[in-house]
């Protein structure tokens, strides 16, 4: 697989045909996520960043262009179990326990969850939920539910990991804690990661590349490389280099 990009979108366009007005969600979008890299997709609401991720996952059709995940079409890649996904909302099934929610992708892929009990237990420990194996989502806090959803996204040992604002519903303090944890988990798994977010400091803290998008029509305006060494710690947030980087991205976001 050497040399094959983890995720690649080439000239992808998508238009939502509504009553009266058509909305161009994506126009001639190009995106390359090298294998093993962490890419953050950032932009204002409605710039098409979530659409781009849904297209890459095969959840939405697109009008033109080409999408490849590990060299395969999205539907083939997802059905072969090499991808993992975490959405903005934890989207847990309310009637399933933590363990059975984490096992859901296995059932969809037609694998026997019983063979994965060891992996599930490890993931529960990894996200710090030991002791909550039999809890229902309604008994967990918002942060705990998000951690279940992160564990669920990792159960297939994905080569490619998609995250759509996975911590969007959390407060700033929790978010920073979860970002540190997410980095630790990602460093252990060594997958190709694509994070959709509208938090600038979250993108800078986590990513190797920050891809900035603009709306109307949805398009990529600049790709910025983030050179900070890993593992990155909480102290990074207070350094002048970090602030310089966030200011630069903010300027690109505001079209300056």
């Amino acid at each position, binding site marked *: 697989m050497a040399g094959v990009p983890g995720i690649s979108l080439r000239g992808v366009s998508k238009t939502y045909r509504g009553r009266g007005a058509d909305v161009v969600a994506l126009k001639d979008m190009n995106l390359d996520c090298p294998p093993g890299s962490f890419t953050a997709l950032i932009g204002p609401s409605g710039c098409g960043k979530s659409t781009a991720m849904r297209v890459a996952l095969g959840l939405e059709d697109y009008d033109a262009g080409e999408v490849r995940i590990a060299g395969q079409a999205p539907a083939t890649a997802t059905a072969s179990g090499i991808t993992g996904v975490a959405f903005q909302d934890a989207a847990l099934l309310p009637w399933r326990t933590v363990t059975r929610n984490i096992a859901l992708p296995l059932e969809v892929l037609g694998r026997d969850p019983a063979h994965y009990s060891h992996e599930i237990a490890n993931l529960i420990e990894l996200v710090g939920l030991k002791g909550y194996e039999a809890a229902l989502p*309604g008994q967990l806090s918002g942060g705990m539910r998000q951690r279940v959803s992160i564990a669920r996204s990792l159960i*297939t040992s994905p080569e490619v990991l998609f995250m759509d604002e996975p911590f969007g519903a959390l407060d700033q303090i929790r978010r920073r804690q979860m970002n540190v944890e997410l980095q630790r988990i990602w460093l252990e798994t060594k997958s190709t990661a694509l994070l959709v977010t509208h938090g600038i400091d979250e993108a800078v803290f986590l990513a190797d590349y920050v891809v900035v998008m603009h709306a109307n029509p949805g398009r990529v305006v600049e790709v910025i490389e983030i050179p900070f060494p890993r593992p990155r710690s909480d102290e990074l947030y207070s350094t002048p280099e970090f602030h310089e980087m966030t200011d630069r991205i903010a300027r690109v976001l505001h079209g300056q």
Partner: protein
Amino acid sequence: MASDRSFWRSPALRNLLVLLAAWEVIGQLKLVAGGALPPVSAILARFWLDRADYPGHAAATVWSSTLGFLIGNALAIMAGVLFVLFPRLQRLARGVNIAVFALPAIAIAPILVLTLQGIAPRVVLAALGVYFVTMTATVVGLSQYDSRSADVVRAYGGGDWLVMKLVRLRGAIPDILGGLRIAAPNAVLGAILAEFGGGGRWGLGTYLLGSLGRGDPARLWGIGLMATLIAGLSYAVFALISARVLGSTRSVTLNTALPPGDGDANAPLALKIALALGAAALPFILWWAFIRLSGVPEMIAKTPWGVVDYLFIADTSAVARAKLGAALMQTLPITALGMVAGLGFAFLLAISSRMMPGFIRAFMPIALVTQTMPLVALTPLLVLMLGRGISVTLWITISVTFFPAFVLLMQGLQRVPQSVLDLPRAYGASAWKELRMVSIPAALPYLFAATRLTVPRALLGVMIAEWLATGTGLGNLLNQSRGYLDYGMIWTVASVSVLLSVAFYYLVLMVERRTLTRLGMQVVE
């Protein structure tokens, strides 16, 4: 759920005790129609004397309603799943669904007794009583799934079937249980109506029919309360199950994504027209097939064409039309009047309940209990108290429209967020202004839904009253035609009452869509 639980606590329990005490006093003093309302103690004493009769009759009713409940719900859930998987099938079946919903059970009870054997009429009527409720609950439950959970399944390459299996079916269970809860008393009502409509030796309906002539109020009350108890218990069983199942499995956050739209909106026009025509024709095709398959002689069992022939072509058609016309002129005005009064009363009480929430909380459980009282059992009691005049018909119509409308309106008003209610107040609006700006518009969609949904019940109530009490209108025509073996008229009354109820349903739906679209509101299913 809150109302189910609060029933066992005060003040509902206290109100019940007060009600029973007042009942006893009024009964002892013979304050209502010279003893038509016997004291509770007299009803219990009579019940004790009749204790040998009850087990057999009650068991027969429970047996046939249980069978009907099982068969009807199995069909309803299967139909619901199919309708969700194949929306075009649902369009095709729309006519049948509406017809089943609008069927005034009393009109087809004699037909079923004519065409089927043994307890089959009871089972069929019980099954018809549950089908629409459960089918609708299944469709609603399966349609309102959490699109985010479905995305997770699809993101791993899962297709429609896996989404159905892992997300939608389990997610629909609370809705289906809610449907079963409402359907259970309907099954009991259907079985009793069929028992009452003829044949058989056992069953509470048969017992009621046999006891009507004796004019013993305590006996009639005993049967009525027994029927209510069975229906109420069946409701309670499912209320309990759904409270257990719901527990902690409700979605913990609100899904803000829009539900997937009607994918069939841009289907070719020809297909749409074909489906609409098919939907209108299908009930008649099924009717025709039912007659052919049951093998009942044509003289007794009329096909759709047979009814047209009877009403417009045969030598006696002029007489038949005159009879039918006269009956309709008696039935329709009283139904309309009763509905307007019942709905208006429910509307006023519901919107003013904002000012006296305590009273409503205590009143709701009693309203729910009366909902489970089988109409056939209620009517003779009202006749005892109100006599055989027009007022009994009016009261029945008011009561069958008032309670469902009130319950629906209250549910609607409870969905208005507190902040919306607080906003006018925060700008110093008076209570009246708040009502006018928030509560009344918020209740409007539910008033329309209540009107549409109570039409068949109102027609059923009027026809039962006419059959049992006043000797006028469609109900009486149906009863007389049974006596004269005028099969053509039986089928005619049955089909006309169904058509009327369907026509009225669509009329309200049309006005409702226009009005609510103008106000930017959603139609309540």
